């Protein structure tokens, strides 16, 4: 396959970026998108150029590192996958592919396609945990009976890999789907209920401080989420946030 790539290049956070054109040939349809990027970088290095910086780690759709906005969608045209699981067979010979970083004020660009998603880390640190003594006296979580429906919902929420596709796809750069999943995965379980009030207040507060936009319920986040996190969790987050404010 021969492809025409338009890739966002930006030296660092201070510099101004632009879309740069690349041509790449002999791409196998069986390659993953990241492998195609590897081939491109090898070509750029051979020509003594600066390779395109992009995030990746596990390349198995688990870590949430890869973060490209491909042809107008986070993680590309396929659904329920991350960029590393996208294959070149999704494209046709001669296609032009636009590759951009996830764009949001709260995700500043570090270089090229690499963005700083530490805003998500800070939201997690503000309440996305349970305070349990792990000094050797920890009870086995399985000794506490949990109704199946809640266990399943908590598990579904916990599948969020924090990749940021929700923010990238939302026209408002809202992080509500991420925060709602992280709040719900704990609040649905008995161990997480104890700190549920403080958790939701702190996490929403941190989300707002990071400069994410407001949710307007377009539903784009759910559609583009590689794990298919449901909008149910946003409605649940809204309920929990109001309840927590009344309690406090």
């Amino acid at each position: 396959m021969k492809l025409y790539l338009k890739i966002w290049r930006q030296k660092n956070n201070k510099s101004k970026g632009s879309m740069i054109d690349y041509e790449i040939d002999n791409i196998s349809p069986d390659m993953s998108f990241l492998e195609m990027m590897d081939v491109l970088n090898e070509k750029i290095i051979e020509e003594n150029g600066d390779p395109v910086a992009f995030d990746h780690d596990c390349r198995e759709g688990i870590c949430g590192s890869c973060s490209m906005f491909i042809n107008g969608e986070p993680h590309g045209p396929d659904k329920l996958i991350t960029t590393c699981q996208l294959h070149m067979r999704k494209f046709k010979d001669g296609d032009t592919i636009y590759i951009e970083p996830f764009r949001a004020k709260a995700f500043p660009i570090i270089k090229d396609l690499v963005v700083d998603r530490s805003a998500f880390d800070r939201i997690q640190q503000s309440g996305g945990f349970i305070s349990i003594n792990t000094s050797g006296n920890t009870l086995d979580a399985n000794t506490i009976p949990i109704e199946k429906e809640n266990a399943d919902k908590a598990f579904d929420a916990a599948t969020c890999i924090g990749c940021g596709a929700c923010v990238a796809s939302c026209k408002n750069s809202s992080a509500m789907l991420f925060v709602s999943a992280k709040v719900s995965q704990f609040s649905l379980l008995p161990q997480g209920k104890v700190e549920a009030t403080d958790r939701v207040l702190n996490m929403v507060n941190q989300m707002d401080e990071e400069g994410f936009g407001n949710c307007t319920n377009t539903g784009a986040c759910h559609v583009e989420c590689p794990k298919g996190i449901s909008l149910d969790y946003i409605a649940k987050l809204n309920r929990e946030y109001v309840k927590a404010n009344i309690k406090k």
Partner: protein
Amino acid sequence: MKKLFNSSIGRKIAMALSGVFLIVFLTQHFLINITSVFSESIFNMLSHFMGNNPLVQFILQPILIVGVIFHFVMGFVLDWQNRKARPVKYAVYKGSRNSMFVSRNMIISGIVILSFLALHFYDFWVPEMDYKYIQVLPEDPDRYYEELIHKFENPVRVGLYCLSFIFLSLHLIHGLSSSTQSLGTNNKYSSIINKISYAFGIGIPAGFCFIALFHFFMHFNT
């Protein structure tokens, strides 16, 4: 509670509540207006009641005006904040692959509705205030129907009204279902809520269109 209304979730709940309030108002406005199609006397009676009842005039009407202003101002503030949240736009953004056009363009439909409201106020509310509180003319309980059909004699006005109702429809289709989501409605009801949103969002503006066109064509040659 102060924190609640300064938060992003609080703001969207406030938007949803004001939106639901305006939907209730719109419904009663439609129910009164539709009577003009089949009964001049009922329409006059209801309009006279709404125009002269102190509870409606001095309590509900100011609340409605505050609700309208709040909904619009909040809408503009949220839109401005949301634009700030992505200072550099995407070169290619395929919103149609993941969301409805109406949900992504509430600000545009909102601006058209705001422009329509200016025209609507100029057409009905301003003359009403002038009649009652500036010129202080003697109350005539039978004047409302005549005033209504007089307004719908003008084809340009009828066209503008119908165009605005199309944008109102686009706004309501997303607005109603979105407000229930903001208010935390359990999503097991989302399928039925979406159907109600479509039915309401299309039905009510279509009904308003029908009223305008009905009076235009009924009194076209008179």
